[in-house]
């Protein structure tokens, strides 16, 4: 096991990408994630692993460069923050439609519009329910620590290539800007051309050989019947992802009568609220979805019989709460507590919400 380092979440994203054998980064600066590209530029991986780092002229250019890299079977990623991700929405649905693997990091800031540079979790809908058009899903991972920023880079690429699907790491200004102790993953070399041939040779545009049809990376299919068949294939893939890739963490749930559901930085702050409430004898637990798509619906359902009320705690006006309600199917009440616009709730504010919205619920 490697030694511990003190690093920012954004810095770790850059270092973890280099270490897991990433081939290329294409991005455009935006607060609060600019350290990702800054760190890559400082590290100069093009001199060591051969990884390409390129500041594109815009977010639209970045996501389309990603499309090109992904189409040739390379491990490529980009990072941005909320308004930048909106600009990438078209590219994301094209990547999903062309079944191209890539990793996109969103270090979320408050919105809507240009909003603020302070942290928020108000891009849940955009990440989980679409953002771009069409029936598609991104695989969405929600890190709650700097260590998970490291771990999810490698995991992100693994899932992206396993399912030929874009993966989003949905972080925010807290996790991105905060420094914590982190243990970096072991270094992996970049894939050789032979390895790319073996892993992605059945679809990647890596040069036509006489024995096969041309590979085309496209999402266009004008024949409706064929497009329907393709959509069914995509949906079958999402079903498999739903069955196999759900990840979550539970804290003090065994004897809980009340449950907080929170993800990412919201879960970190909620965990302290649970500790404080427990010290006052309130039987409350914390459920943290780690994958937001696929959502841990069944795991939440399994907790319902022992619970009186659930509280979804988010740095938004209430987005994930809809998925909690879908999971609960109206069996028990689901309430919501949040702060918006870049303001961050304190653990004590959540404790107050536990007392008024859970324990004191009329």
């Amino acid at each position, binding site marked *: 096991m490697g030694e511990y380092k003190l690093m920012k979440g954004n810095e770790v994203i850059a270092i973890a990408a280099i270490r897991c054998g990433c081939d290329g980064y294409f991005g455009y600066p935006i607060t*609060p994630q600019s350290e990702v590209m800054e760190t890559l530029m400082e590290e100069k991986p093009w001199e060591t692993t051969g990884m390409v780092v390129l500041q594109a002229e815009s977010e639209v250019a970045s996501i389309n460069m990603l499309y090109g890299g992904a189409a040739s079977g390379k491990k490529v990623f980009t990072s941005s923050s909320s308004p930048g991700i909106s600009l990438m929405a078209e590219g994301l649905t094209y990547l999903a439609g062309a079944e191209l693997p890539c990793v996109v990091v969103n270090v979320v800031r408050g919105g809507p519009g240009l909003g603020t*540079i302070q942290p928020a979790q108000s891009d849940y809908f955009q990440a989980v329910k679409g953002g771009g058009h069409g029936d598609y899903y991104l695989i969405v991972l929600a890190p709650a620590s700097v260590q998970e920023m490291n771990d999810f880079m490698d995991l992100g690429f693994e899932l992206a290539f396993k399912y030929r699907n874009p993966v989003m790491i949905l972080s925010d200004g807290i996790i991105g800007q905060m420094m914590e102790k982190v243990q970096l993953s072991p270094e992996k070399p970049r894939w050789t051309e032979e390895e790319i041939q073996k892993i992605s040779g059945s679809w990647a545009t890596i040069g036509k050989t006489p024995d096969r049809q041309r590979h085309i990376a496209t999402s266009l299919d004008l024949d409706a019947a064929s497009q329907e068949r393709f959509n069914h294939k995509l949906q079958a893939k999402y079903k498999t992802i739903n069955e196999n890739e759900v990840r979550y963490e539970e804290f003090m749930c065994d004897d809980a009568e009340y449950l907080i559901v929170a993800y990412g930085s919201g879960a970190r702050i909620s965990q302290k609220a649970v500790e404080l409430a427990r010290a006052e004898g309130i039987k409350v637990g914390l459920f943290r979805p780690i994958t937001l798509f696929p959502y841990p619906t069944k795991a939440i359902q399994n907790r319902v019989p022992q619970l009186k009320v659930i509280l979804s705690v988010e740095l938004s006006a209430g987005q994930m709460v809809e998925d909690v309600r879908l999971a609960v199917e109206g069996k028990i009440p689901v309430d919501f507590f949040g702060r918006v616009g870049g303001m961050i709730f304190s653990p004590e504010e959540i404790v107050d919400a536990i007392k008024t919205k859970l324990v004191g619920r009329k």
Partner: protein
Amino acid sequence: MKEEIIIAGFGGQGVLSMGKILACSGIMQDQEVTWMPSYGPEMRGGTANVTVILSDDRISSPIVNAYDTAIILNQQSMDKFEQTVKPGGTLIYDPNGITKHPTRKDISIYKIAAAEEAVKMKNAKVFNMIVLGGFLKIKPIVKMENVIAGLKKSLPERYHHLIPMNEEAIEQGMKIVEKIS
């Protein structure tokens, strides 16, 4: 052990790097640490603050609004953070530029004339290390050897020749910090 600290002052005073060195020192002795800066459209002369938590156990929230120790280095930060110290907690401040001194009776208050001392030492840049020394005298939560190891970790190698100077500043800070109430 768990210590929740806010360090607050002007941008350019070394607030963030002082927090980083403290967090690095914690890692050197196998503690869990978080370092959460206020970030924003801020600049030299604006306000800067950082929350540093050192703990023997896993840290849940990096965001807290009540602190065991507040290290306060300008008047704006005094206005903002004096009331956030937990009852029985500690407030350390540099009186330089302070017009309204702390008045709370339920906390321990210490004064460290670090800006003045830095001038005496003819090195304004060691200001934050003098303050760190004062803090460590009152709350020896990390060992001096680990602070030096932390300095080595957080400074690029080309600055390692400056470590003895920083060490001296920390020791000076330990000497000049004084209890007020």
